[in-house]
């Protein structure tokens, strides 16, 4: 089955080994990129093939070498956006579909878990195992928050609620965080104890 976005479609595949994946990518006539090759271990092999335009004749392939750890890579797309975001291992990679190049790479402090798009603020929350990074679609990390192993993150109005495996839940005042103007390292939001 295909996933449609803008005028393109995506096909997702999983491969038994790296050789199969590389051979498949080599057949993508519009080019290909291989991500995660710097991984300490390569356990799972995934591809996303973008069929460009409604004709779908030109294929651009993106391969991911995953460390495994029981986790599956995730791709985030946005209508009318010429970028795709891939979350895997301990990083997020933005791919520009116009140049067919890596637009940015964001290393994470821990294993990637999920994307939480905030379209009205032009942000994507990147949830990793022990924290969150607020990322623009242009690849700028606006703020970050690290705590403990996260079990759930939810957004309600202007508050971001975190539940943890071993710590009490908290929320962050999201509106306060996006208006910070200090340097990145100083933008880390103060945590607020969750009031029942």
């Amino acid at each position: 089955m295909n996933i449609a976005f803008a005028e393109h479609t995506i096909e997702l595949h999983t491969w038994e080994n790296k050789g199969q994946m590389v051979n498949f990518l080599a057949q993508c006539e519009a080019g290909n990129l291989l991500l995660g090759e710097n991984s300490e271990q390569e356990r799972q092999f995934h591809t996303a093939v973008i069929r460009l335009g409604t004709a779908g004749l030109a294929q651009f392939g993106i391969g991911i070498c995953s460390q495994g750890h029981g986790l599956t890579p995730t791709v985030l797309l946005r209508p009318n956006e010429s970028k795709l975001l891939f979350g895997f291992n301990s990083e997020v990679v933005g791919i520009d579909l116009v140049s067919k190049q890596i637009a940015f790479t964001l290393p994470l402090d821990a294993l990637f878990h999920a994307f939480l798009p905030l379209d009205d603020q032009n942000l994507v929350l990147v949830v990793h195992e022990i924290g969150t990074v607020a990322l623009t679609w242009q690849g700028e990390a606006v703020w970050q928050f690290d705590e403990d192993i996260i079990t759930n993150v939810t957004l309600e109005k202007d508050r971001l609620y975190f539940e943890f495996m071993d710590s009490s839940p908290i929320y962050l005042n999201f509106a306060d965080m996006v208006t910070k103007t200090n340097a990145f390292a100083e933008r880390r939001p103060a945590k607020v104890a969750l009031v029942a």
Partner: protein
Amino acid sequence: MLGKATGSLQNIQRSQDMLRNLQRIGFYDDSDTRALLEDHFTQTLNNSTNILKIQDDGRIVREALLMGPLGGVKIETIWDGDRLITMKLFGGGR
């Protein structure tokens, strides 16, 4: 680490994957393994030569080898002071 995590699909899958890796090197979820892991992490924390990096938030990433009867895994751990936050296992087979 022993397959008993709850809370989210990712946490559950991570935990089960770590247990599979431990089983491949000969460790199972029993009291002996728990005691051995406790000892391993105590030694990891107290070894000043195993620091891989210090993160921007001051947390320390350490790495150490855990040997079992059937092989070994490298365990990369993240510490906040003496508190173990999380870990990744490398090796142990697929």
